[in-house]
């Protein structure tokens, strides 16, 4: 049958056209295409690798930043606590100093008051005794005009003294 018998003309032209096709593509198409495909595959691989590295670095950096932030927070908290303590201490010191000062002032005041009181008492006593003496002398002058009365008084005073002793 014709279908199963290869025709020489077609075989010949098939060789010719396959030859032309192969030579043209081998020279101008396949090297460029295959090289580009390989290069692109390499480029993509490299890109992926690069992206992975970048991501790892980013993660690392993020972690470091987190650590730094935590550290800073801790330091801040410490500092605040320290400052608080210092403030309390200063206030306490100031208060105690003020108390001491006040105490001192009060003590001095007390002392001077006592002194003045003493002085006032003394002055009062002096003046009272003066008055009393003056009154007494006046009274005595009046009373002692009579010599009898004078001797009676002397004797009563002497009695008194005896009684005391």
């Amino acid at each position, binding site marked *: 049958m014709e279908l*199963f018998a290869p025709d020489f*003309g077609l075989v010949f032209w098939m060789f010719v056209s*396959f030859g032309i*096709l192969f030579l043209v593509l081998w020279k*101008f*198409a*396949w090297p*460029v*295409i295959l090289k580009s495909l390989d290069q692109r595959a390499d480029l993509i691989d490299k890109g992926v690798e690069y992206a992975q590295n970048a991501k790892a670095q980013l993660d690392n950096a993020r972690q470091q930043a987190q650590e730094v932030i935590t550290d800073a927070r801790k330091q801040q908290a410490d500092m605040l606590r320290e400052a608080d303590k210092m403030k309390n201490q200063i206030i306490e010191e100031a208060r105690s100093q003020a108390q001491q000062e006040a105490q001192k002032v009060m003590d001095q005041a007390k002392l001077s008051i006592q002194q003045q009181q003493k002085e006032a008492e003394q002055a009062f006593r002096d003046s009272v005794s003066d008055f009393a003496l003056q009154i007494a002398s006046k009274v005595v002058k009046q009373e002692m005009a009579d010599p009898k009365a004078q001797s009676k008084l002397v004797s009563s005073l002497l009695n008194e003294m005896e009684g005391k002793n």
Partner: protein
Amino acid sequence: MNMNRFLKIFFLLALAICSFSARAAEPESDAQAAADQAAVAAEARLEAEAATEGEEQIDAKKIIFEHLGDGYGWEVPFNHHVRIPLPIIVRAKDGGFHVFSSARVQHGEVYASSGADFMIAPEGADHQGKVVQILADGEFYRPLDLSITKNVAALFVSMILVIGLMLWLASWYKRNGFRSPRKGLGAVETCVEFVYNGVVKSTLKEDAPRFAPYLLTAFFFILGMNLLGLIVVFPGGANLTGNIAVTLVLAVLTFLVTNIFGTKEYWKEIFWPEVPLWLKVPLPIMPVIEIFGMFTKPAALTVRLFANMMGGHMIVIVLTLLIFIFSYMSPVAGGLTTVVSVGFSVFMLLIDVLVSFIQAYVFTMLSTIFISLAQAKAHGHEKKESVAKAIEDALV
């Protein structure tokens, strides 16, 4: 944008072929043209008469083989008498080459070309349907025929198509560097990558760059021919890969590549395989089997591609013919068959698109495996196992 360019290229191509054919037809003398027309008219009248009588039985077998086979001149749709003329190139018995248009012998005329008469052998004669030289004694002599027949023209169309696509892809890479193409060109690139990475590289490993140009060329040539064969009108329609001459050449090329680049280990395994001594010494049983195997591989390649593609074409033609056969029996049956047949034809053609791809893929894959078997290194067993695994993977 890309699509437009593609269409432009395609139309330029079609125009070039048309004008070439037209030029081939030009030198025809007016008288001859008139005679031709008269002949055509007469034939048409006869056929019209036959048709009105409705007595003409359809010769299904003839139609099928006409469509599956080759021909001088390329059919056009809706007209059985006009064909696009193609050059006929023959070497007459006296050794002189004769070139003339197929339009001159198309309807059974005898063409006298400077000292030799040619015609297409009529039905029933020797070399039926082929150009023959009529010798002085009236005998038919089949000359050496290098005509650009329909199949050869379709071969050129596929070749130009594949060259165009690949140069286009290459020029894209030159212009755009690492950017990957989109749309149509992207599809071409995907196919290249699919074959190169999926078949060639995975089987041949470090030998891949040496054989990739041949295997890729074979793949795209077969794919182009398969797909063009499915287009029913002019630039396609030739049953190329369903022609044994085409598949034979492809298989022979694979055979040559396999054996020319075969390693020492490969030849050793053929003539002195690692089998018990009694299998090769008194009677060289294993070497004979191995040598036989060398030739059965390309034979299998030839037949599987040929049979698969021819089968696809034949099914579509038979489905179409069913309409006419049933119409001959009764108009109602004809009408019903039309619906069913057209539906099935469309379905079959869609399947054939898939088959076109699969067959090109299988041819490339088998060629790759045969070549890789011939690249056997010193530790042949490992290689064989890996190839066997590759075959298994491919089949799964």
